[in-house]
């Protein structure tokens, strides 16, 4: 695969919070939200990012689009460095990347109509204006299952799921090269969700857009993604192609995750065996030594507490960070 086709290159990115001590010395510990991760995404690829709540997925997403400064590492979008870029440069880079935010309620300007919100990228990038803009916005609204006449409404007049769709429409408006989707469909009912997923796939087929897809819904992940990355406490613990991943999950955390997926069938779901993770939940402020997962891992041995496993390539091409898997 030639370098040129990489839409996104992340190298050893680490993001820390706190440490330099708030305002009144309420220092607290340093939260190592993202702790040295490396990932490439090629054109037309969808990579899923899954992991425990609070493991750093949103932080990584924010870092990719330059909303969060990493303490180390490099992020390149279309070959251009994001880290340390000035306003103008960032603004150029952002032509190529968009983001669907996790909190739709907070990421919509309460004083702009959603038409204005969705139209904004089109206006500022000079794509459309006037009547054409109105039509384009109308079309986008329709694509996400809303109505053109909703354009005059304000965010607070929508339901949660409707707001989420507005955010999606905004991100897709420019047909960027890369879309970071932070839980894009979690608030949608299954039928609308299907519609949005279809839209994402269709767009990908048409424009070759790549997605970094943060989701907790493994069904959705399986449907839409080419590759899956599992994150645990700021690090990647498993990276594998979809089929490999679902056929043969390797990391114990991944296995636990898989076993917890609820089935949409009461008979099956209520009789299912689940792999319950025991042990203390570690905090990102005090990441356990060695393998961060060893405190909860059913396979853990003495070495796990001592040495941190690196991501190593396995036979089927999956890369896993575990001493025992």
């Amino acid at each position: 695969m030639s370098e040129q086709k990489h839409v996104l290159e992340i190298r050893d990115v680490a993001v820390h919070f706190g440490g330099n001590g708030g305002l009144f010395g309420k220092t607290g510990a340093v939260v190592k939200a993202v702790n040295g991760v490396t990932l490439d995404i090629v054109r037309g690829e969808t990579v899923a990012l899954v992991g425990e709540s609070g493991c750093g997925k949103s932080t990584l997403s924010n870092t990719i689009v330059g909303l969060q400064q990493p303490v180390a590492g490099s992020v390149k979008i279309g070959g251009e460095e994001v880290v340390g870029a000035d306003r103008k440069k960032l603004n150029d880079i952002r032509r190529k990347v968009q983001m669907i935010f996790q909190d739709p309620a907070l990421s919509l300007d309460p004083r702009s109509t959603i038409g204005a919100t969705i139209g904004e990228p089109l206006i500022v990038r000079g794509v459309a204006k006037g009547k054409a803009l109105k039509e384009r916005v109308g079309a986008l609204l329709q694509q996400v299952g809303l109505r053109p006449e909703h354009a005059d409404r304000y965010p607070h007049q929508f339901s949660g799921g409707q707001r989420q769709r507005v955010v999606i429409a905004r991100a897709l408006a420019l047909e960027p090269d890369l879309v970071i989707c932070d839980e894009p469909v979690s608030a949608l009912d299954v039928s609308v969700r299907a519609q949005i997923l279809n839209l994402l796939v269709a767009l990908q087929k048409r424009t070759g857009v790549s997605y970094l897809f943060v989701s907790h819904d493994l069904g959705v992940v399986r449907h839409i993604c080419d590759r899956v990355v599992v994150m645990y406490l700021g690090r990647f613990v498993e990276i594998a192609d979809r089929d490999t991943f679902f056929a043969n999950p390797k990391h114990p955390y991944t296995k636990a995750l898989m076993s917890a997926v609820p089935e949409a069938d009461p008979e099956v779901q209520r009789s299912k065996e689940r792999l319950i993770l025991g042990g203390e939940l570690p905090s990102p402020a005090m990441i356990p030594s060695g393998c961060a997962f060893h405190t909860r891992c059913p396979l853990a041995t003495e070495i796990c507490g001592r040495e941190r496993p690196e991501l190593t390539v396995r036979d089927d091409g999956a890369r896993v960070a575990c001493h025992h898997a």
Partner: protein
Amino acid sequence: MLTYAVQRLIQAVIAIFGVLTIVFVVMHFSGDPTLLLVPPDASAQMITELRHQLGFDQPLWVQYLNYLGGLIRFDFGQSVVQRIPAIDIVMSRVPYTMMLAGGAIVVAVGIGIPAGIMMATRRGGWLERVLTAIVVTGQSVPTFLSGILLIFVFAVTLRWLPTSGSGDFASLIMPSVALGALSMSTFARMTRISIIDELGKDYVRAGRARGLSMGSVVTRHVLRNAAIPVITIAALEIGNLLAGAVIVETVFAWPGIGQLAIQSIQSRDFLVVQVIVLLISFVYVLTSVAADFVYALVDPRIRLAR
């Protein structure tokens, strides 16, 4: 944090220095006090002589350097009018100014903020109407008028309060009200609007859902979220109250800095003006630094420096 504080301090010193320089230059530019000091029948030659004696015939930069030289030694110079150290003159007024400003702040904040809260939470009620009337009155009655009206009503007619003076608590009441009225209105309206801005937010509903009364939601959550503009106004008003009390002080014969400032400006008592300006800019810069810190304290998302 510490580096920020140090940086901010350096900036503050530069700002104060800037103020002093501007005021110095501009004051001298507008003429010197000699003409005001001499008797009307003084001859041109005598005036020149006195001007020379007082040193106002030196080039401006020489006077400025002399002044700075004095400042370094904490010598603020002598009043040409009163012939005593300028700093003593100003300092003798400071307690009065603080008393009056304090009284006015009590009026402004003590009435303004609760009134603002009431107006925001009781929208459409009779209480809101009454408070609105009071607030608008506070905003539209000039101080020179309200002062004398207060005197006529409460001192001359009712004889409840002393007409003027600066001795005791009783004589502080009317000046504080007259001075604080306008700020009170600003506080009330600012509080009201900020709270209304917040009341529509989801966390208010969430607060009520966990069983808090509207009042507790307001006092525990909304106020803090609505605080920033109110704090800004407070910082502005404190500076304002210190320096802006000219009329109130004149009407109530209150010997504060405002009155002294206007007299000194009018009599071109340069060094006294400089000390006053130094004091005001000190207080103002201090409150503005404080405000910036309080912003970050109130809203942890605000970073002091980027």
